């Protein structure tokens, strides 16, 4: 107990020190977004300066933020819902009716996720062209659903696996059909797990920058495309890029912070325990 005060002080200093260190780049980005382009490249870097909103004004005058943000929300939510819709029955089948091939299938699915997307760009582009899906939100939702499916299936699988088979059997004796079994028994019991899977998928969709850049042009373009129109033009761009990045990152960051507890709670329940 003698060293307890020193230890506590050390822990607090370390905890805050590391937190500030990790957060510093984001803080600096936000700070830069309030500078003029000239001040953004001043050496030494300025910590105190007259803040200006001119970069934000410039960004908004060149691209309609709300339309990009709406697309981001639509495709992230859509992709997540789609992935869950396919993954829940799949994971259910694997968890409760495993066959000798289940384990192999699951790993193989995860391994397809390790294929760099650029390797299949042209085939997908040709498919999308044929189906008229280029630059549509539906097209992007399909891709995002597919993209996150392996991870979603695997996470759900681990949550479902935790559920004693006996409980389901008890339900089954009440005469529930397979769908009813999933809907009335399994999902309510594993809700925290399903929710945190959905949250993770939502974050991954929001931040995805390859398919969104290559499969959309204007009508369905999400915030990652918005960023690409402010990075590396001819001329100075640090402040404008920071402003664009700040508004693109802010929604998901706030959302992530708010849902962090839920994310963690779900993970406690299944995969991590």
């Amino acid at each position: 107990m003698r060293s307890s005060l020193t230890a506590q002080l050390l822990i607090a200093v370390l905890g805050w020190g590391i937190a500030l260190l990790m957060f510093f780049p984001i803080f600096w980005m936000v700070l830069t977004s309030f500078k003029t382009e000239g001040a953004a490249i001043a050496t030494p870097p300025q910590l105190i300066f007259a803040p200006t909103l001119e970069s934000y004004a410039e960004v908004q005058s060149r691209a309609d933020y709300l339309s990009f943000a709406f697309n981001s929300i639509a495709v992230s939510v859509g992709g997540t819902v789609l992935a869950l819709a396919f993954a829940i029955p799949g994971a259910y089948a694997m968890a409760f009716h495993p066959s000798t091939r289940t384990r192999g299938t699951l790993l193989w699915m995860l391994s397809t996720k390790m294929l760099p997307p650029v390797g299949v760009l042209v085939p997908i582009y040709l498919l999308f062209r044929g189906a008229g899906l280029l630059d549509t939100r539906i097209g992007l939702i399909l891709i995002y659903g597919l993209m996150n499916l392996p991870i979603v299936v695997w996470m759900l699988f681990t949550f479902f696996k935790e559920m004693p088979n006996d409980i389901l059997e008890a339900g089954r004796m009440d005469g529930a059909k397979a769908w009813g079994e999933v809907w009335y028994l399994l999902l309510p019991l594993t809700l925290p797990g399903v929710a945190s899977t959905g949250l993770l998928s939502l974050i991954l969709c929001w931040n995805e920058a390859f398919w969104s850049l290559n499969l959309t042009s204007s009508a369905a373009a999400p915030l990652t495309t918005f960023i690409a129109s402010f990075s590396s033009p001819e001329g100075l761009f640090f402040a404008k890029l920071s402003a664009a990045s700040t508004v693109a990152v802010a929604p998901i960051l706030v959302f992530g912070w708010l849902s962090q507890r839920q994310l963690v709670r779900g993970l406690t329940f299944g995969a991590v325990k």
Partner: protein
Amino acid sequence: MARNCPRALTVASLALMSGLIPAGAARADATLTVATVNNGDMVVMQKLSSEFEKQHPDIHLRWVVLEENVLRQRVTTDIATKAGQFDIVTVGNYEVPIWAKQGWLAPMEDLPASYDTADLLKPVRDALTYQDKLYALPFYAESAMTYYRTDLFDKAGLKMPDHPTYTQIREFADKLTDKTHQTYGMCLRGKPGWGENMAYVTSLVDTFGGQWFDMGWHAKLDTPEWHKAITYYSDILKQDGPPGATSNGFNENLALFAGGHCAMWIDATVASGMLYDKKQSQVSDKVGFAPMPVGDYAGGPTWLWSWNLGIPASSKQKPAAESFVAWATSKDYIKLVADKNGWVAVPPGTRQSTYDQPEYKKVAPFAGFVVNAINSANPTGSTKEPRPYLGAQFVAIPEFQGIGTQVGQTVAATLTGQMAVDAALKAAQSATDRAVKQAGYQK
């Protein structure tokens, strides 16, 4: 695809009809998707395009503005798969003849007489012409020149000659470098890429008497000329260049020069307007201009780049698209920009009439250097030895993007000391030879 055919037919017949019926009368509203780069001049075009929509109430514009590399991937994929996402694309003079040959771009056939194609600077116009037809119209064009800091030259008692040589430049750079004050004698592109460091390196090699390929399409990268050029390049950057040279492209160098960190910089002429602009540059009143330095061989190809607007052959709204392209590259558009933002902000390098404009000459003291540099860029000229390809700071074959980028990486490795010049050129030679062999150029 089959589903699209009837639609394509009706659109084609509509287009036909609109050619027969007096213009505008039978044309339904058209929405054009314009893909462009996020450079300043294009952003101005996007902002001013509402004027065009006012003049053409039946045409609406949708904008896709992306950074250069992403745009190039996006547009190339789309046009090569004939997916038809864009009605107007922004393309470089590197792509235009190649794509025209593939039949991917629609020729500009019905330009009004007032458009005055004869007013376009000849080298720029020639680069966009394939089999006597224009396949894109130039939005702005650039060559390269030397920028230097007049105050630093004065302080060191130096004087920039009217036609500097690379030997002189090297001496200046050594004298002007003052690393303790973060002033570097020479800034050059070091970021790997066919349009980044290799654009500069190619024109440097040309003036040192080298070339990419001989008449039999054999790579010529392990020659004494390349060796001399790369040694020069890597020495000057290592000794007099800023730290982080391998991540510096045009932009990064612009920021460095504008922030007062470079005594000299050799790069695209388009930077002159930005360096001269007080809002963007801390050295706006201390910039001097000089032509690109020469080495052992003068008069060869130097540098010519233009950003152009073209219409994909897959566009279903070609007449409407052509009217926009003609508007955005016209004399009237240049005047419009001058009225709104001042003459110094007009898109440079495309029209003689811009350079004849007294107001422009008054506000842009660099104008004379720019137009001379473009007129002497000589992209179709010969290197010291005859060459089978065209292009000034690039090789005008489709494979060059890949080859140039790979060699660019190897050249960058000489800057960080990961590779010696000898080893780098040997590797670059074998990679380049392999690539043209695989593509079937060597007989």
